[in-house]
């Protein structure tokens, strides 16, 4: 029995929730009147919305067993493109049209990744590192190296700034998108095929799962979500700085991996991701309220990513021990045509 994977225990599933609750209690007690206020808490949540949207999209390629490093580049491109469309038309472009063009451009960027990986069979990691840099370069060209801030219509910025019953609208976006991704992953045949592809691509293909199509779609979805995040970011900020997306890459990976160790351990799952997002956010918020220096944020996020990956690794190793399959062997199968 020792060499077989055990079903996840209660603590493995809900350890993260317990940790989050513990952090909240700790900060509430040690930071009276600061941490547990409506403004602070809603601030924590709304700070996570954009990163959360990027991470939600990232769940799909990760669940299918491929990396998408280009999401930061795609998001930057979206921020710059949507604001530039207004600036260059003097604010006359209809808002839905500008958003539609940006979303299509984002899908095209995802399509480039998908073609490189599925058709040209380039390793996804390498392919998306390459395209990421290309998208960033493209953003620089469009923005001409400067932050785009002219002629951004008020109606556009309200997309990112409105509140509904004192809840920032961006939080509503996150909730809606999270529900959609959760439904797709857990309640559609596509979600099942996605997990099967990620857990054993060749075995899934031999069971009749269209693994290449699944992987193709995941790249479209992750790019689409990064684009949505970029549009929301541009609206909230009211301008388009040409260097934003890159800083969202690492936190997205950190929360996706940390999320994969809880609720449904061993799977990239939406509830786990949400808990992970708030473990990162609440931790940073608490540390900042303690007055801890600025560099702690990056260090903390990096540590969370590493710890999460180590946790996820030991779990998979437990599952794989004594099996012929290794992650390396699965990788070596390549993408079947």
């Amino acid at each position, binding site marked *: 029995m020792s060499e077989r994977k055990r079903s996840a225990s209660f603590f493995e599933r809900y350890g993260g929730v317990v940790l989050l609750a513990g952090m909240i209690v700790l900060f509430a007690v040690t930071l009276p009147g600061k941490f547990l206020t409506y403004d602070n808490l809603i601030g924590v949540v709304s700070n996570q919305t954009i990163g959360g949207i990027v991470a939600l999209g990232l769940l799909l390629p990760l669940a299918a067993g491929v990396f998408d490093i280009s999401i930061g580049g795609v998001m930057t491109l979206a921020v710059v493109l949507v604001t530039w469309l207004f600036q260059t038309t003097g604010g006359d472009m209809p808002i839905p049209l500008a958003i539609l063009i940006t979303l299509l451009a984002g899908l095209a960027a995802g399509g480039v990744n998908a073609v490189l990986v599925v058709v040209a069979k380039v390793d996804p990691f390498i392919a998306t590192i390459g395209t990421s840099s290309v998208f960033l370069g493209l953003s620089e060209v469009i923005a001409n190296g400067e932050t785009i801030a002219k002629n951004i219509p008020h109606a556009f910025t309200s997309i990112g700034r409105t509140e509904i019953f004192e809840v920032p609208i961006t939080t509503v976006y996150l909730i809606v998108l999270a529900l959609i991704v959760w439904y797709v992953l857990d309640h559609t045949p596509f979600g099942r*095929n996605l997990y099967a592809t990620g*857990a054993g691509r060749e075995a899934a*293909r031999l*069971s009749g799962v269209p693994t290449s199509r699944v992987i193709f779609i995941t790249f479209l979805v992750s790019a689409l979500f990064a684009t949505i995040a970029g549009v929301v970011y541009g609206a909230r900020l009211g301008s388009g700085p040409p260097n934003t997306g890159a800083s969202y890459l690492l936190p997205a990976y950190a929360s996706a991996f940390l999320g994969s160790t809880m609720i449904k351990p061993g799977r990239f799952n939406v509830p786990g991701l949400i808990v992970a997002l708030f473990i990162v956010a609440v931790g940073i918020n608490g540390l900042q309220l303690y007055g801890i220096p600025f560099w702690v944020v990056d260090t903390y996020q990096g540590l969370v990513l590493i710890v999460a990956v180590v946790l996820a690794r030991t779990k998979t190793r437990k*599952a794989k021990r004594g*099996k012929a*399959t290794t992650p390396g062997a699965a990788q070596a199968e390549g993408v079947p045509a």
Partner: protein
Amino acid sequence: MSVTDVSKTFVSTRALDRVDFDVRAGEVHALIGHNGSGKSTLVKVLAGFHKPDADSGPFTVEGKKLPYGDPEAVHRAGLRFIHQELGLLDELSLLENLRLGDRYLTGRGWRVRWGAERRRAAAALAIVGLDLDPDVKVADLTPIERTQVAVARAMQDEDAVRLVLLDEPTATLPSSEVTKLFELIRRMTAHGVGIVYVSHRLEEIEEIADRVTVLREGRVVGTGPRSEFDNARLVSLIVGSTAGEALPAAAREATQVHGEASLLDFQAVTAGELRQADFVIRTGEIVGVAGLAGSGVHDIPGVLLGRVPVESGHVVVAGRVIDDPDPAKLRPLGAAVLPSPRHLKGIPELTIRENVTLADLRPLTRGWNLDLRRERREAAAIVERFDVKPREPEKPLAELSGGNQQKVAVAKWLRIEPDLLVLDEPTQGVDVGAKAEILDLVASAAAEGLAVVLCSSDLDDLEAVCSRVLVIRGGRVATELTGEQINRKTITEECYRSEKARVS
């Protein structure tokens, strides 16, 4: 070199039972036996990978005692092992392959002395009669040259080498090059090196071996000079005299229902080891496919799964010619294929439920919605019907024993009610009870009209359920056995029958 009285017991099975084996300097000693005879266990004991049971006798080389389970000591004593896959790295040069796992000659500042290394590599290649640039990549070599390089690697410190074991060295060689291998072996024996030659091919053994040892069920059932064993005697030693065991209940009845519709038709298919293979499978029959390693048996499921490219010929499924077959193309035509490698049969991280329904989610889908409640009900029913243990559909597949994983894999395909099911080694690594259950399931599905192709190296399986057995030899269907001819002995004889004999 000699080992005496070696036994090796794995968890419940005795893989080697008091085996004696010895090799003299300069002789070729052939080691033969069917799959599961203990051959590979013996090889692994000699190589130091397995430690035999504590009551085993001594392991000696030139009179000196050697510890068991110590690969380094084995190497130091001058024993070399060349496995079927040769263990060469394609992307490295000959020189780098020769030095693999060993130190390079270095000069000042840890500089590799490439000049000296090249001369050393050329000398090693000369031992095997190869005149090649040591900087050539292994990927660019012909099959025989690769074998020669593997031998050169084993022989490079010539003076220290006492014994070389060749495991199925001809499995990857075209038959025209076998003579070159034999020349090489004779060159080695002339140096006083002893050879252990593991092979299925009796005609090769007839030509090259001085002595023969036959293993069956972990025991030596015959040993002596090659001249004392003719092919017929070898085959009967390999097969043994065990009579066929009791057949699963549903088995023979299934063979009665015979349709005429052709479900699978290979027309002069050349792919992998297959050479213009022709055969037809019809409704309701269970057709066994037998053959030795390298004969092309496993290329039949391989072709259907899209793992072995078709070079020429046509694969016809349910009356339609399929170019580049793969599972997604076969499923709509009612054909399903169960691959043989264990890690491809199912997905260990997914639950039993998820594995069992993976082949077709459409019956469980309304619009975009996967009806999980219905899926749970269906999975519970399947687990019950196929007697999967534990009866917990929510357990990850990885938690199941090999036999139960097999049942899940078979259940996955029977669930979609195919017209044709191709099974590649469905009972490999499965205990006797589970094996009978799996065969029973297949047989009762066949009784309802399912056509089954059973590629199995377990002859008892074939004997138990098949209405026809195709024997693959040299990449084509060499013989078709029916009725009383389907028994272990005849199948084995046909598998081992030499090509020469067939032609004449």
